[in-house]
């Protein structure tokens, strides 16, 4: 059985991996990669997470806005929850979900 990993990174995720420009999942699982609802949610989450990164800012080459990430915690958890729900809805038994992000965000 294939695995859909949920993980956030700069310009990547949460569905691992995805097109950073469109949010379209690139998992190799048709039912996931072609779902437009997932693509929209994926893009929204990716956009929010990547917005915390600033370069040549605050005296550093790369500065991560931890305060904003904490402020957005509930918003991010709600989006991740919608993402997991949609994955469950479309799951035809061909994949399982490995969520490596929700627990981290809950601890913020």
């Amino acid at each position, binding site marked *: 059985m294939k695995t859909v990993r949920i*993980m956030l*990174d*700069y*310009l*990547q995720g949460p569905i691992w*991996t995805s097109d*950073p*420009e469109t949010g379209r999942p690139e998992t*190799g699982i048709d039912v996931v990669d072609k779902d437009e609802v997932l693509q929209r949610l994926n893009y929204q989450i990716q*956009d929010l997470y*990547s*917005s*915390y*990164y*600033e*370069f*040549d*800012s605050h*005296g*550093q*080459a*790369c500065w*991560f806005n*931890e305060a904003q990430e904490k402020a957005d915690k509930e918003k991010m958890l709600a989006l991740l929850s919608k993402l997991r729900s949609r994955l469950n809805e479309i799951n035809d038994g061909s994949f399982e979900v490995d969520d490596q992000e929700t627990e981290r965000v809950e601890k913020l």
Partner: protein
Amino acid sequence: MRSSDSGFAHGTNGSPQGSFEAEEYSAKMAENEAALKKLARAPMIDEGLIEELEEKHMKFSREDMLFITRDSTGQIIWLESGNSSAGLEHIYKRHTNDFESKISVRKEDIPEYLHRVVTYGSVVENKTVTRHGRKGYSRKYRYNGRDYILTGIGLNGFLVSAYPVD
């Protein structure tokens, strides 16, 4: 090069157990290991590229820098030790298992491996992505003809993340 210039500790003739106390032997081994690490890292820092960053008044941490190089797009790219969100610490935390399981690169070899990927790898995909008015790069390198490494790079060239992909 004269042996006295090598930076390595000497005096390990014969059996270390026979001619040295274990403690002294361990200290010399540690010293040699440190010298080897220094030698291994030296080529990964190009002072000329650092000068270029300075001339452009770009922010960076010289003491946290693990490598600096220029990739095939011509951009200066560098990796710093970083933190849990960006840089080597982030890569270790999030992607060590991927490096080990997908391309058999051990955790301790990741910095040197990435230096080779960025320096000698060919760029097979380069997307400029704008997030809230800030641009960054999602860049995929092919190295050794078989390894594909996807990276997230800031507009300034700071390497935020890197991971092997299929």
